[in-house]
């Protein structure tokens, strides 16, 4: 298959990004650069200075809603991407509606309890929809520990062990690796799918 056919599959795809922090902002930008047609972004947070050590935002965007800033940054990279941005806290009640039309959903939260809520909600609401989660990326080094594990429609990217703490902060290199692994898994799912969208 020539890559031109792949390009049309990417252009026709809709990807949900749940959370626009370190994982979500970097994953969304990677997908935008390669021409994903539609991104559905959701986050309830505003940019702070401490976010800039890993998240795809700029100094002059501090205080902005992450959804607005990410929409703007993606527009500057690839204006052909359709962005549906929701400034909202995701809950078991609103997740099924917000991401219903997405081909793949990316879990990009930072707190473990929120990750659990999203994964459980998505597994119940969309058992057939591929879900790509990021688990374990704090600190630095240990490239070899980072992997992708698949369980049915759930794909887990990360080392599945290192948790953030005061001594083990989330930092751009490792968070960026996992965010891009998530984007890479999304592309693989889209291009391997037999539905031929």
């Amino acid at each position: 298959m020539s890559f031109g056919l792949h390009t049309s599959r990417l252009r026709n795809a809709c990807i949900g990004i749940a959370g626009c922090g370190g994982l979500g902002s970097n994953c969304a930008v990677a997908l935008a650069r390669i021409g994903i047609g539609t991104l559905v972004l959701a986050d309830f947070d505003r940019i702070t200075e401490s976010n800039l050590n890993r998240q795809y935002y700029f100094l002059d965007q501090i205080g902005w809603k992450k959804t607005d800033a990410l929409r703007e940054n993606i527009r500057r990279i690839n204006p052909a991407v359709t962005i549906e941005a929701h400034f909202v806290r995701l809950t078991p009640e609103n997740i099924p509606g917000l991401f219903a039309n997405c081909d793949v959903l990316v879990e990009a939260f930072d707190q473990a309890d929120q990750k659990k809520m999203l994964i459980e909600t998505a597994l119940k609401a969309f058992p057939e929809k591929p879900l790509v989660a990021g688990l374990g990326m704090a600190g630095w080094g240990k490239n070899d520990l980072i992997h992708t594990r698949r369980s049915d429609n759930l794909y887990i990217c990360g080392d599945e062990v290192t948790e953030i703490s005061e001594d083990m902060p989330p930092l751009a290199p490792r968070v960026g690796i996992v965010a891009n692994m998530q984007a890479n898994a999304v592309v693989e799912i889209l291009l391997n799918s037999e539905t031929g969208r």
Partner: protein
Amino acid sequence: MNILLNNNPEEVSGDELTVAELLRIKNFTFKMLIIKINGNLVPKPDYETATIRPGDDVQVIHLISGG
């Protein structure tokens, strides 16, 4: 009995185990887990009653903060 635990073959004692027993045997003490048996989500209130049988595909996913 032999089961598949997180995609790896694993031999555990007995012909039937509850999820709670498996967590004790494997020393999975982490509070924030997602558990699936043969693709089906097992909610936390069911850990004492949900059973694992020979050949089952069990996934124990540790929810870790960071992102």
